[in-house]
């Protein structure tokens, strides 16, 4: 039953082929047997999950259950879960049990989804490989010598290894789309403000946005239906009417205008990736869409702008971790300064420290205008590129990442080489647009490659429709990671 998508499970649960409790037990068993290979979970909440599954079964029996009722999912470990460890992949919060839920956790629970636990991630969502987690790197189920991507690496690995049907992630500079691409999944970063940030531990407040990682666009639509909401607890969430993201999945895309930015196909793009993305574009043409070369001339400035803005916001957002009210506190502080400095030295990993220092530098007296203000000006130029483009095209298509999944340890010693991974995903966050990553084939060494579609503000329904139509005509999304024997044994037991 772990091969099923949400859409398929919905039918099975309603046809009583199995109960949510059975389904949940099956997933919990798989996690127990297989996750030591992938390290995709930080916390598995077996008891809580089975309890939710029982409740879901009752709701299903009554016949008025919503789409996600009884479906086993998992949350990235930066969404606060009442009574369950929320570590953000950091030693700093390795003892933090929130007394409240994130709005999306609440929304998904209200929709009847069963949370299996909390997934691994780069520390405080800072990274593109999941290697910066205090709980160890998560592994890519397609190739365990490779990273699953990051920062929502555990969320992607768990779905790819079929240890959850779908998961939540967060995307500040590509942290949903890049791991989805590396793990052969569909990952959606909604428009900034579409999904509440309440209870999502902040990395860079003006860029962070939660979204789903799933096997298909249809599943992502079902997840987003539950996740998206205006929230009066988040001043930056947007009070506009929410679409039914499932309703338009089957709309025709004949005449769809797809913009293809020249800047996304230049030096640095891996040949396999270029080939597969171009093949996907050709497929769209066959489906009746038209391709339009466009230019997003400030793309090359996205990395420098992002690596000023995000660290600057992070440097302030992470000041609350001071060892006073929660989180890690050093032993025997000799005075207040020692308490601060040692708690933060011990509680934060290298990448987090680097970004805090860079952020402090960019905001400090004498550098603010040259770095922070300048970066925010460049951000407007980047946004304007998209605004101009969307006067001519409906969606923009290109690669998600310049390359397929890289090896564990390959980039971890050189932070800048890691940052360059984000070139195609960062502009979406800087502009606040929505974007989706969907599988478009395997590289010559059998690693998944993703196609990125970027949509206009609040055009999630359109993106999901365009992605779903692709998945109706192709089967890239149906390919699953080659999981070792243990899983086959489970399959035969099914």
């Amino acid at each position, binding site marked *: 039953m772990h091969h099923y998508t949400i859409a398929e499970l919905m039918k099975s649960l309603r046809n009583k082929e199995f109960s949510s409790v059975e389904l949940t037990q099956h997933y919990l068993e798989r996690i127990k047997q297989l996750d030591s290979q992938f390290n995709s979970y930080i916390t598995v909440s077996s008891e809580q999950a089975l309890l939710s599954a029982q409740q879901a079964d009752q709701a299903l029996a009554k016949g008025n259950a919503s789409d996600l009722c009884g479906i086993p999912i998992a949350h990235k470990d930066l969404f606060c879960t009442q009574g369950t460890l929320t570590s953000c992949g950091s030693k700093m919060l390795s003892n933090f049990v929130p007394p409240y839920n994130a709005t999306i956790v609440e929304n998904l629970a209200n929709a009847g989804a069963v949370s299996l636990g909390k997934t691994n991630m780069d520390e405080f969502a800072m990274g593109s490989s999941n290697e910066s987690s205090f709980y160890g790197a998560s592994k890519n189920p397609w190739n365990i010598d490779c990273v699953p991507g990051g920062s929502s690496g555990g969320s992607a690995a768990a779905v790819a290894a079929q240890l959850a049907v779908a998961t939540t992630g967060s995307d500040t500079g590509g942290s949903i789309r890049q791991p989805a691409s590396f793990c052969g999944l569909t990952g959606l970063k909604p428009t900034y403000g579409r999904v509440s*940030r*309440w209870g999502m531990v*902040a990395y860079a407040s003006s860029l962070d946005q939660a979204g789903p990682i799933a096997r298909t666009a249809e599943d992502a639509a079902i997840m987003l239906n539950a996740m998206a909401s205006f929230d009066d*607890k988040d*001043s930056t969430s947007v009070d506009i009417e929410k679409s039914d993201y499932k309703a338009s999945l089957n709309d025709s895309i004949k005449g769809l205008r797809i913009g293809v930015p020249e800047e996304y196909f230049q030096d640095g793009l891996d040949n396999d990736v270029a080939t597969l993305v171009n093949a996907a574009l050709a497929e769209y043409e066959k489906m009746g869409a038209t391709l339009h070369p466009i230019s997003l001339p400030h793309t090359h400035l996205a990395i420098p702008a992002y690596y000023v803005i995000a660290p600057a916001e992070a*440097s302030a957002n992470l000041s*609350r971790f*001071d060892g006073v009210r929660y989180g890690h506190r050093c032993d025997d502080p000799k005075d207040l300064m020692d308490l601060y400095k040692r708690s933060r030295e011990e509680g934060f990993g290298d990448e987090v420290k680097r970004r805090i220092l860079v952020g402090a530098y960019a*905001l*400090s007296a004498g550098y603010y205008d040259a770095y922070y203000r300048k970066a925010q000006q460049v951000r407007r130029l980047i946004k304007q590129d998209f605004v101009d483009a969307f006067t001519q095209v409906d969606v923009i298509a290109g690669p998600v990442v310049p390359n397929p999944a890289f090896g564990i340890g390959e980039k971890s010693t050189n932070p800048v080489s890691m940052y360059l991974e984000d070139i195609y995903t960062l502009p979406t966050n800087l502009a606040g647009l929505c974007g989706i990553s969907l599988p478009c084939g395997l590289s010559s060494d059998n690693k998944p490659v993703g196609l990125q579609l970027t949509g206009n503000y609040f055009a999630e329904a359109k993106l999901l429709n365009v992605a779903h139509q692709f998945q109706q005509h192709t089967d890239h999304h149906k390919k699953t990671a080659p999981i070792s024997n243990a899983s086959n044994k489970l399959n035969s037991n099914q």
Partner: protein
Amino acid sequence: MEWETVIGLEVHVQLATKTKIFSGASTQFGAAPNTQACAIDLAMPGTLPVANEQAFRYAVMFGLAIDADIGQRSVFERKNYFYPDLPKGYQTTQLDAPIVGAGQIEITLADGSTKAIRIHHAHLEEDAGKSLHEGDFEQGMSGIDLNRAGTPLIEIVSEPDISNSDEAVAFAKKLHSLVIALGICDGEMSQGSMRFDVNISVRHKGEEKLGTRTETKNLNSFKFMEEAIALEVERQIDVLEDGGSIRQETRLYNADTKTARAMRSKEEANDYRYFPCPDLLPVVLDDAYIDSVRQQMPELPIARCQRFVDEYALSAYDAAILSDNTHIANYFEATVKQCNDAKLSANWIMGEVSARLNAEEKTITQSPINPTQLAGVIARIKDNSISNKIAKQVFDGLWLGEGDSADTIIEAKGLKQVSDSGALESMVDEVIANSGAQIENYKKADPEKRPKMLGYFVGQIMKASKGQANPKMINDILIKKLNELV
């Protein structure tokens, strides 16, 4: 050589909102530690601020009251520094785009002249929590109470237009009465509702360039402010006259020891790394909003003073005293409304009421006698039920809670004025009969001097009546009877 002092004030005014500026936790004073600090106030991970409309309304009211430009687009910034009473590691405040722009406040000096003190701007920000250094906890530790964290403040920043401590106090008092009149602050200084930071420098008279200034922080009474300014001015002059130089520093005044010292925690130059808070969007207030606030503005002390002159025929002096403090003005008007005598109400409030409050160090809101009760006393004076002298006894009785109205006290103590002419005539007869020598003197006296001699007889009669005789009737009867004798 003569020295000149230059002072600028930064005044923190806690706004009288029910809840915090960015959370729905109560701002009520005096709760048990950390029982009014919610997840947002504690900066728990994942929590987000949502701004309180009432805080903006109050700030706009202040801006309108001082004729300032209202920042129709104001922006919150993060001011970054670490301190245990600052849970987020940054204070959310305003910098480049404050809610209130430049304005001014006029103060009245001791000689009756006025002086305008310019306001540079006023901005909204959140208050910090409190560090307690001793209590029911381990020695060598401090206890952090975050109940106050997130209480909305406006910080009012003056230009350095103030020349001495008298002006500083006059300015501070003026602000105090203004924010109370507006109803935007409870004005409870002892609870920290209004706190002053004083920037002080000195220079030789005639010098253009400002001297190096120091900032004395967190003064919470007019008296402490006056003392701290005097002390700091003297210190700076001493240092400079000894050939030294003033270090720019933040100082703390200790009201118990009447000394001040530099703050150790502020010694290192801080780089606050301000930047616009990404969790809070710019607040845009349109003309319609500002107009609606303007419509709802309460009467300000200046307007009220003029109205007291026009409506109640008070002297300018009385009107000024009664209108300056909103609570006193309200008390006055409530009294007048019930007794219909502005002059007597004014006299009683500025006289007896104010003297008793001062003696007991109480404010008008703590007065044991309410306006209805005072109006009851005044009504009995007006209808001749009691004399002024008896009225003071009735007032005392009310003050001490011996009865709940003037009438019950008059009744209980039998203080009602004797106006029965038969009873009064017999009293007069008795006094005349017992005052043989004085009667003889009266008869012999020049008729022109006789009226001055009445006092003795009146006094005797009042004594005999325990003050309850109606003085006017006594006078009439006495003159009639004495004239019969002559």
